[in-house]
């Protein structure tokens, strides 16, 4: 297996900070040349062979994830207006202090257990395993990490709950968040109700129309939902508006970012709060088959559920990690959200990472049938893991995801979120290549009741 990393070949870019009042405060790179990174083709078998440089990079992962400046290699960082620098440092200091805060850990564990419903089971999907057996009866074993059973029906609550507790510790009474489809908004509104915090959710006006039911839910939970009309009135604009609010109200307000994107320390913090997924998986794998998983599969939008599962195993080199993004109508259609496959390096929402941008460095509006994957950026740590070859990233079209949605429903009676369906769809390509008895753990990141209307419309069941 051979691959090439393009990370060392970038030509000089000139960076200009452009902050037009009507657009998002995104720092754009004006390219000095028409350089495009070489397309990376990775075809992996069970044992991954990496070149010397990347082997060293993997060894260094512990030290670099992230470094003191908040970088994962060259990704990550803190590309934010000056007003936010103090708040971010304060947040980082508070977060690092939690490692030794026994009271906080105990309280968080109690809430994760009694309120969120952890630990979530590691479920052996017998019929799905049967489905992937080859004619000679051989095939991998598929296990599902059931994050769909959490309170609010997705993994998002792990982070929301911990950040709300942290906000209370910091004495912040006001919480803001952005949301695309509303799932992160509902999770944030939920924890704010639970902890008695004032909650304001920014949501693109277009998204609000598409997801009216989620808007009602947030309001029933006591949150204020503010429509964002700028730009394309979708997630990325809502995020920018939320950042603007935070800049204005930073002393009283904590921003609950929903994914492992954003400026340092968010990627690290959100990852740590979701890392319980991977920790439980290790323990459960040991109980169930006395070993570790061989392959981890998760869908990637911003990348929080994937990092939550992967983080625990990054040092375990024999564990293969696969992230699955949304290819929408297809990678060549221009209507997709496959950031790590088709994107280029840039800065969005405070972090350097891969992102979908055109030749002028403008953000391309992504598309995916699943709103949670409909994000033009990706967490910087994923960009790093991809570049050093530690994790592989593939993509799945809307159609393939819908098929997988139906397949899991019919085989296991579990209705997965359309986001999760992308990871499930990748099993079609993955399983034929795996040896007999390989243990695959797939993160079932959310349940799909919310997606039934969409799916039925497209599937015509």
């Amino acid at each position: 297996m051979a691959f090439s990393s393009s990370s060392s070949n970038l030509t000089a870019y000139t960076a200009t900070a452009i902050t037009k009042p009507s657009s998002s405060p995104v720092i754009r790179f004006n390219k000095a040349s028409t350089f495009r990174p070489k397309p990376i083709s990775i075809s992996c078998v069970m044992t991954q062979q990496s070149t010397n440089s990347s082997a060293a990079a993997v060894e260094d992962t512990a030290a670099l994830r992230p470094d003191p400046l908040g970088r994962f290699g060259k990704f990550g960082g803190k590309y934010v207006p000056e007003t936010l620098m103090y708040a971010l440092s304060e947040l980082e200091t508070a977060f690092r202090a939690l490692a030794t805060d026994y009271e906080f850990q105990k309280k968080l564990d109690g809430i994760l257990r009694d309120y969120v419903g952890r630990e979530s089971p590691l479920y052996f999907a017998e019929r799905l395993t049967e489905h992937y057996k080859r004619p000679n009866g051989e095939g991998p074993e598929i296990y599902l990490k059931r994050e769909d059973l959490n309170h609010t029906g997705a993994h998002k609550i792990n982070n929301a709950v911990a950040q709300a507790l942290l906000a209370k510790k910091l004495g912040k009474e006001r919480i803001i968040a952005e949301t695309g489809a509303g799932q992160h908004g509902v999770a944030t509104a939920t924890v704010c109700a639970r902890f008695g915090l004032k909650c304001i959710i920014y949501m693109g006006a277009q998204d609000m129309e598409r997801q009216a039911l989620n808007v009602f839910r947030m309001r029933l939970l006591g949150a204020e939902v503010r429509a964002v009309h700028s730009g394309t009135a979708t997630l990325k604009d809502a995020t920018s508006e939320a950042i603007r609010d935070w800049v204005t109200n930073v002393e009283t307000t904590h921003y609950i970012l929903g994914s492992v994107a954003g400026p340092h320390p968010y990627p690290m913090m959100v990852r740590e709060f979701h890392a319980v997924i991977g920790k439980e998986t290790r323990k459960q794998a040991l109980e169930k088959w006395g070993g570790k998983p061989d392959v981890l599969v998760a869908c990637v939008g911003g990348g929080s559920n994937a990092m939550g599962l992967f983080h625990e195993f990054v040092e375990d080199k024999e564990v293969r990690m696969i992230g699955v993004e949304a290819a929408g109508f297809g990678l060549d259609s221009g209507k997709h959200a496959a950031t790590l496959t088709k994107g280029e390096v840039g800065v969005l929402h405070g972090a350097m990472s891969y992102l979908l941008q055109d030749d002028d460095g403008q953000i391309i509006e992504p598309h995916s049938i699943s709103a949670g994957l409909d994000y033009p950026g990706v967490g910087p740590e994923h960009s790093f893991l991809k570049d050093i070859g530690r994790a592989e990233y593939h993509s799945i079209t809307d159609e393939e995801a819908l098929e997988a949605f139906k397949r899991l429903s019919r085989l296991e009676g579990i209705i997965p979120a359309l986001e999760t369906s992308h990871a499930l769809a990748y099993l079609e390509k993955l399983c034929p290549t795996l040896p007999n008895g390989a243990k695959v753990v797939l993160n079932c990141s959310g349940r799909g009741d919310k997606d039934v209307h969409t799916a039925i419309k497209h599937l015509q069941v």
Partner: protein
Amino acid sequence: MACNYSTVSLPCVGKVALAPIESPTLNTNLNYISKSNTIKTLSTTVSLEKAPIIGKFGSFGGKFVGEVLMSPLAELEAEFNLVLLDHEFKMELVCAMRDYVGRETPLYYAKKLTDYYKNINGEGPEIYIKREDLSHGGSYKMNNVVAQAILAKRMGRKTVITATSTGHHGVATAAVCAKFSLDCTVYIGTKDMLRKPSNVQLMELLGAQVKPVDGGFQAAASESTRGWMENLQTGYYLSGTAVGPHPIPTMVREFNSVIGKETRRQAMEKWGGTPDVLVACVGTGCNALGLFHEFVGDKHVRMIGVEGGGVGSKTDELHSASLVRGEIGVYHGAMCYLLQDEEGQITKTKSVASGLEFPGVSPELSFLKDAGRIECYSVTDKEALDAYKRLCRLEGIVPALEASHAFAYLEKLCPTLPNGVKVVVNCSGNGYSDVTTVVNSIPVNEI
């Protein structure tokens, strides 16, 4: 409480005239009026030990079915008795409950709800919520369906037949049948299909065959029994309600009793004792029995069932409070409290929570009510909707409208309880699919 000469509809038999039914002989002072909401405080000499598995709870229960069903029911009873002692069955069930359904469900201390009910002196009961809303499928229904599906497989059955009113039980059955490779046929009334069309879509997505039946749940249940009878060798009738001929009420209660068992253990861990008060909503009584059954022998544990009071308590307004306002009759093969008119015809029921809209109720609960072991109340639609919104705002938990009835009763209960009393409320399901109903009930400018 004597019934007049009544005509009832029995499945597969049609209309049957029943001789006057005698009041249950319980050695109790029967000076109460069944239509009242008051607690039955008179003493009783009836033993409150759990009813032996012989099909009757006092004079409630039984097997009022056509002859042709007696043999399949006997076979089911025999199999059920076997599995209760079968280690392999228990292991398979425990594994499915843990990994598939996501048990055990937490017993959650609702601090903000507790604070809300504190009086001026800062005194009040402590409210704990049994989180059945966190189960796979979003409600407690999986407990019974998973166990029965495993039972069906043991019996070598290939097809599962069931009837559903709102569709929640249908969806749970379809999901579990998908997992266990069983063919699934769900009968649903056309009226109910219109109320919750999304559930029909879910059932079809999960691979079930949905058969619409003209009318409501009564018609669907009759049709499904007919369907079962055509298929007695390979079909298994999976009942979702606690009302039915023996052994169904006992089976459904046994399989749901895991709720109470977990609660006992969790209460011991959390505060070193048993709960003082248990509160649950009552439609047919499955979730209530699931919580209560474990504690029936603990006489100091108070048990409160809360039914759907509909719009209000006037006699001409529709409601679903079978225990509070019903009279004894036979429904779906069992003798129980039942909402019926003077001629013994089943009355229409109505509740904002469609899962409570059942004219009959579990024979076991009927027995426990008459014996004075449980208290039964009803709350109106409006009180339930207020409780739904209250729990959302205070705890960030969205309860099903059915469970909201149990939470609504806390308004009346908590002021009467001494300081520090431990109340466990069964949150029988989550209410994300009820948001539309709730929102439609709120005036537009208040949202």
